[in-house]
């Protein structure tokens, strides 16, 4: 069969309808489709695992709910001895390569398709997210590199903050994308915030 199959974004149809231009009081959103994700679960020796990851990626594996990134790869703490690895511009086999490189130290489960990841950038991002999540997003508490696993509108989400823009990423199980989109759009409307598509690629 001489055909190629293309991945389908969970928010694809919603994002297609958004205007691409940003104006006053807007929030830029984009679905992260070029990254690979995996759950990395320590097999017990966290120190050895951290050393292996540091050797491979130059990343200091966080021991709490934080995100540590080297610009391409990032590890996000989601539980004791459990991390979400996010690799930018990585192919569908990335998770199995990671599994091989961490063999014996960690169990790795490919989650590239499991999560739909929305990148949200803009002044209003904090207020919009706090409408849904009972998490303190005050910059003094939830600065860049902070991460939390929680719920928004009864939907399980992992949220991490990337930068000072501020940019957040929200990862949720892809089957919930339509319900999450409903929450996001009604919340933005209530706040008078417009949603626009991300123009260029944001800093990682």
């Amino acid at each position, binding site marked *: 069969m001489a055909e190629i199959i293309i991945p389908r974004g969970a928010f694809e149809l919603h994002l297609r309808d958004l205007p691409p231009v940003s104006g006053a009081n807007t929030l830029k959103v984009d679905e992260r489709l070029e990254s690979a994700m995996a759950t990395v679960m320590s097999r017990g020796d966290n120190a050895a695992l951290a050393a292996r990851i540091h050797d491979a990626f130059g990343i200091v594996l966080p021991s*709490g*709910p934080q995100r540590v990134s080297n610009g391409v790869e990032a590890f996000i703490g*989601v*539980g*004791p001895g*459990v991390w979400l690895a996010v690799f930018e511009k990585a192919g569908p086999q990335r998770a199995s390569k990671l599994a091989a490189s961490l063999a014996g130290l960690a169990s790795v489960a490919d989650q590239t398709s499991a999560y739909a990841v929305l990148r949200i950038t803009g002044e209003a991002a904090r207020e919009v997210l706090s409408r849904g999540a*009972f998490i303190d997003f005050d910059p003094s508490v939830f600065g860049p590199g902070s991460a*939390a*696993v*929680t*719920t928004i509108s009864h939907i*399980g989400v992992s949220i991490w903050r990337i930068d000072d823009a501020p940019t957040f990423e929200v990862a949720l199980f892809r089957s919930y994308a339509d319900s999450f989109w409903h929450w996001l759009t009604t919340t933005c409307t209530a706040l008078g915030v417009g949603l626009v598509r991300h123009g260029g690629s944001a800093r990682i």
Partner: protein
Amino acid sequence: MRIPCPYCGERDGAEFTYCGDASPVRPAADAGEAAFVDYVYMRSNPAGEISEHWYHGQGCRNWLIVKRNTRTHVISAAMLAKGSAP
């Protein structure tokens, strides 16, 4: 209510599932039926501090032992169930 998850920090109670008294310990495989009946069905109902299991299913997915006062609802401690004695 707020539960201080040892990993995630203090979180709203809605993220957790209440899973009952944490003190019963599963008997040894050969302990016999009576021991298992006790383990499955018999619970004390203290007026005061109790150790309970709460599952942080909408967070770090850990089973916690939460020390709660049944009279005041005050939560004095929470720890990961893994590696803790109830």
